[in-house]
């Protein structure tokens, strides 16, 4: 008989309950949630496509975007020019492709710089005593009272055009929300007991900031960066639409929309195409950001 003499003694042979369970890993869960819904996948596809175009642009584009062909100006979409040409004969499709490179470049640089500075300031604000904290937060509040387009427009308009100035302008516009969100995240992480424990054993503030607080902010920062690129590209399009920004003849999507507006009745695709491109790219980044956020930590909904 298979029972032992003492009631309460451990079972003496393994049953199927004791078989090892497939290791549940956080990474696997994150990945499966991200790919569980269709939209983040669509976003990822769009962004990959966008990145490929950016990298292989010069080889893919059928024409040189600056090449003028006045004989063929304002041509409608045809097999020679898939999206037609503009008023001085430049191929729209090629200009779109080159414009992608500009947009992505600006997006990445602006986000990297603003997140680097913003996260740093946010952490400092969260970790310092009353005075520096309040100074940083009040200035942030002040900056956030500006519509970000207006802020970027002010800086860009007053600095002048050019790639460098646009980047500076957009960075200034992006910094304040980053600081605000990072500070809020860091403050709430600070409330946790493991931070208290670190303080109790005498860990220095800088060390706590780097090894306890920062790793826990990675998820929201990553999400913020992904969705931020979308905002930056949108803002850059708005600025170049208004005429501020990269000097012609470099193709820039926003300005292409503005240039095409004059010919709306005859050649609507001149305005539609670049605008659609902006929308798709921003959509891709936003959906990816949404998916990332849900996969990493659904509690962030509404915050980031």
């Amino acid at each position, binding site marked *: *008989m298979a*029972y032992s003499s003492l*009631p309460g*003694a451990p*079972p003496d042979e393994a*049953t199927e*309950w004791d078989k090892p369970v497939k290791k549940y890993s956080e990474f696997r869960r994150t990945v499966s949630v991200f790919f*569980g819904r269709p939209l983040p996948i669509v976003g990822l596809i769009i962004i990959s496509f966008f990145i490929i175009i950016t990298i292989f642009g010069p080889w893919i584009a059928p024409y040189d975007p600056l090449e003028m062909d006045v004989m063929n100006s304002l041509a409608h979409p045809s097999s020679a020019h898939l999206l037609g040409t503009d008023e001085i004969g430049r191929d729209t499709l090629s200009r779109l492709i080159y414009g992608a490179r500009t947009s992505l470049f600006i997006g990445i640089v602006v986000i990297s710089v603003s997140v680097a500075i913003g996260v740093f300031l946010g952490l400092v604000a969260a970790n310092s005593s009353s005075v520096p904290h309040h100074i940083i937060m009040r200035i942030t509040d002040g900056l956030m009272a500006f519509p970000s387009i207006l802020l970027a427009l002010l800086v860009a308009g007053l600095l002048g055009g050019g790639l460098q100035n646009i980047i500076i302008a957009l960075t200034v516009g992006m910094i304040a929300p980053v600081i605000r969100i990072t500070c809020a995240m860091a403050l709430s992480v600070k409330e946790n007991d493991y931070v208290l424990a670190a303080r109790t054993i005498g860990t220095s503030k800088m060390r706590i900031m780097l090894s306890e607080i920062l790793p826990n902010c990675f998820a929201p920062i990553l999400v913020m960066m992904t969705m931020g690129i979308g905002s930056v590209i949108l803002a850059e399009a708005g600025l170049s639409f208004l005429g501020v920004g990269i000097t012609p003849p470099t193709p820039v999507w926003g300005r292409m929309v503005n240039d095409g507006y004059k010919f709306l009745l005859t050649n609507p695709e001149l305005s539609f195409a670049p605008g659609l491109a902006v929308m798709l790219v921003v959509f891709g980044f936003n959906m990816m950001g949404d998916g990332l956020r849900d996969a990493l930590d659904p509690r962030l909904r509404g915050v980031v």
Partner: protein
Amino acid sequence: MNTLLQVENLKTYFRTYRGIVKAVDDVSFHVNDKEIIGLVGESGCGKSVTMLSVMQLITTPPGKIVGGKVIFEGQDLLQYKAKGDQMSSIRGGKIAMIFQEPMTSLNPVLTICRQLTETLECHLNMDSHTSRLRAIELLKLVGIPEAENRIDAYPHQFSGGMRQRVMIAMALSCSPKILIADEPTTAVDVTTQAQLLDIMKEMVDQHHTSLIIVTHNLGVVARYAQRIYVMYAGRIVESGLSDDIFENPRHPYTIGLLKCVPRLGETTGKKKLVPIKGVPPRLIDMPEHCPFLPRCAYKIEKCKTEPVSALREVGNQHYISCFVDTQEKR
């Protein structure tokens, strides 16, 4: 002795991305009028889900009541739509429930008065003035001091114990036939626990309400319940009169459970508390045989090959879900 509530073969499953969780797997029990019954089991055994299923408060995805009947006053409640008017009139009016977490169970932006009077207005059709007076009365009954002043306060101005009393007052305001108390004392301290239970017992005696206490605290049911059901891994493994269960447990799980509980005044016999070895099973992809098998000290060959035993009678109103006659081994 009428049967007020008869639950037959209740099954509630949850879909998760790791598989189907059979939280409640073929549970049957009944409640007579003017009776206090206890539903005990460890965390995760499915006792709360059972009660939520009776009230049709299961969030439908991911959970679903897949089978069984809940017969109350001649009607199978599971035939009613969960969000429909018929079920709503039963909830609160005929069957009331209070929950474990008083800190989060009250709406923070509404006054206590509003939260009390809305039940009264809904089920008893009282006007606002009468309901307010009745609400003050109810608060006094559950022992809230200065009820007339405090009634317009917000929940965050009350302590945990007082919030739980408010919950009890809300639940009993329409004199329901059955009150389900889901772990009512787990989140409060010991002194408050005793007070809350006494209040509940008193209200039950006065209003002739039946009480179902769901808990993992054996001490609570020992003192108050007349009949007890023991649950494990989504099934009822033992049921019987309270005294019977405590003095003469028959199912290996109950036996093991009672061995872990220290008893006052026990001077002879073993002094050591013997825990049940092993861990509770995951409720995903449960096999057909008895869920307690890996941890059972009484198992026989039949336990591994046959599906889990149905409840069989071993004494007066005493049933166990086990093939083994544990009397022999004692």
